[in-house]
């Protein structure tokens, strides 16, 4: 075992650092959070910049236009871009991290050619139409119907948690094509153009006040049959295929950021007046922060382990991710609570107060509540760990 990076890894890191240092000062100012057309333009412009420099689709294979980087290089990429404060993947999230990799694995050559180069260049934005009001943790219970009419599917139903729907060009859509089959076997995966008639988008405001989520109402939307990816009724497998690509890198940027924020909290504590001294004089608070720093160090080590296993093809793909997600998201929740206590009445404002960078901590305290819910709640993750890693039997339906 070692934690040393190879010479070529270090060379990659140095080259990337130099490029980021030259490129980031040229960024235009960030648009306001609710100006979605401007956000799309800003996020996709950065994607184009990455593309032109050869960093787009860092972990995508070369045959679909990616860089074909190793998991370790991917780790370095995420670590360095986060440290440098480079833009987040933003509206390109679904295209780059889910729909794109799914197309790369399962789509026809024509479908790949039509979409993958455009996703990499930032020309095409995707959203995800999976969850429904009645199908959350039990995603396979989805009921949006697709009825065959000649060479089209006619789709009617409702989707929810559709991030970036208001600016997306395409939607990766799960629909029920066989209502009589067992629930996992009657689902198909469709490419839905977002300019199709019959789509109505209603924003869904989060507890942070942000507007990235939407509800999407589909009323007789006609989607060409040639837009189906994979066989009819094989959509569940198609949707789950990206799971097996998860190489332990999903939370690297988050982790780097959270480690930096723990250091920021220590700084805030050192400068916050309390009882004639500072908050940092409080043994209990220091111990809590120290404990969380130890957990973050351990999570970094766990990430290195998962990435090594991915590189060697050992371990169970995707499952190390469940252990990580459980530990990380529950830690974020506790860290948020501690930050709110430390900030005291400054925690009552989402904007920075009195020169202290408090707003980010308040926002992340709320954001942490989504982490233990989204992409498999902590309860579902415990089922996955219990059943697939420990071999405990399923609860009978």
């Amino acid at each position, binding site marked *: 075992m070692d*934690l040393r990076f190879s010479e070529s890894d270090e060379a990659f890191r140095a080259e990337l650092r130099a490029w980021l240092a030259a490129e980031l000062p040229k960024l235009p100012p960030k648009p306001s959070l609710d100006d979605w057309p401007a956000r799309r333009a800003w996020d996709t412009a950065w994607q184009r910049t990455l593309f032109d420099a050869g960093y787009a689709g860092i972990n995508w294979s070369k045959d679909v236009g990616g860089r074909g980087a190793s998991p370790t290089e991917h780790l370095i990429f995420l670590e360095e871009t986060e440290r440098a404060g480079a833009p987040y993947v933003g509206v390109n999230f679904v295209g780059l991290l889910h729909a794109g990799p799914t197309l790369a694995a399962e789509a026809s050559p024509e479908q790949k050619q039509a979409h993958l180069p455009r996703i990499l260049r930032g020309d095409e934005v995707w959203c995800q139409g999976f969850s429904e009001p009645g199908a959350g943790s039990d995603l396979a219970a989805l009921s949006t119907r697709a009825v065959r009419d000649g060479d089209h599917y006619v789709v009617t139903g409702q989707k929810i948690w559709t991030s970036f729907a208001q600016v997306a060009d395409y939607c990766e859509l799960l629909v029920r094509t066989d209502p009589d089959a067992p629930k996992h076997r009657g689902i198909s995966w469709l490419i839905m153009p977002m300019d199709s008639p019959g789509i109505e988008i209603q924003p869904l405001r989060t507890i942070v006040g942000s507007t990235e989520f939407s509800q999407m109402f589909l009323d007789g939307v006609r989607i060409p049959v040639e837009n189906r990816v994979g066989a009819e009724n094989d959509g569940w497998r198609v949707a789950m295929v990206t799971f097996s690509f998860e190489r332990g890198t999903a939370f690297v940027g988050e982790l780097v950021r959270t480690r930096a924020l723990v250091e920021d909290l220590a700084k805030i504590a050192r400068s916050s007046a309390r009882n004639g001294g500072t908050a940092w004089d409080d043994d209990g608070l220091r111990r809590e922060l120290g404990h969380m*720093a130890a957990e973050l*160090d351990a999570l970094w080590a766990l990430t290195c382990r998962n990435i*090594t296993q991915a590189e060697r093809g050992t371990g169970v793909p995707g499952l190390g991710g469940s*252990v990580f997600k459980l530990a990380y998201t529950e830690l974020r929740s506790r860290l948020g609570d501690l930050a709110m206590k430390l900030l005291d009445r400054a925690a009552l404002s989402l904007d920075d107060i009195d020169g202290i960078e408090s707003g980010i901590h308040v926002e992340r305290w709320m954001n942490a509540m989504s982490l233990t819910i989204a992409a498999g709640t902590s*309860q579902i993750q415990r089922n996955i*760990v219990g059943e697939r890693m420990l071999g405990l*039997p399923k609860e009978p339906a």
Partner: protein
Amino acid sequence: MNFDLDDGERALQQGIRDVCARLFPMERVRSLEQETGGLDRKLWRELGDAGVFSLRVPEPEGVGLGMTQEVLVYEELGRSIVPGPLVSTHLAAGLVEGAASGERIVGMAERGRGPAILGHLDAIDVLLVIDADGISSVEPSAVRATPVARPLDPLTPMHLASELPAGERVAGPDVLERWRLDGAALIAAMSVGIASACVEQAVAYAKERKQFGRVIGSFQAVKHICADMLVRAELARASVYAAGVMLDDPSAGDAARQVAGARLLAVEAAVANGKANIQVHGGMGYTWEVDAHLFLKRAMVLQTRFGRADSLAGAIAQTLT
């Protein structure tokens, strides 16, 4: 970066696992409790022959390995709750003659205010006493001590001494400083072994015990306890392995901080999993008949070695800049 066991490390892990299975199956451990109160000199020698105390001693006398590999060995010793002052004897190899081979058993105590509570005093050949100035060697028979009538861990007998003799200085603060790091990492490794053993025991029981007409592991209420146990053990293991690597290769990170974190999380995992294992076993887990209590009680012994939770967490906080 290769942060997972390589072939040699896997072979080492399997080798020591086999040694533990041969020398310390659960029935042997339980019989040691009745017969000797923990230690058996012959078994100790066999551990010595297996190289458990000479891992760091250079070849040809020893095995010539680093902390990266030592944590793997001590994880297995923890998993089998091998009794005795393993870490003390291991650290003393090279300093105390006969320690590396298992011929002499070495205990350790910290000189402090108030009485000392000493483990295995009747069985050890040398007592090393540590204080701010370094390490001294004390003849165990020179320690005036009375046995603790009911030690918490039946496999770790205890004595109470009102004071410790001065002894003979054998090493200074520089050696001690390194011992504190290595010792904390090895205690953490043994704790990870206990935490993992508890996961295995709880899961095995949850797959076999039936209530309400089905195995209890199918209930989410029980399954989620087991999942949390695994998460604690895996997180602690990653932390301990990183500590081992950093102790061998300081360029890999802040070894002192990583060791403190590993010791903190691993002992917590051992104690929490030790309790969760008893909970999953239900009423039987509360009896002497089931092994679960022995693992929790050993975790409590480890909790008192090479660091305290509050100081460790506080020390880590001081590294936040």
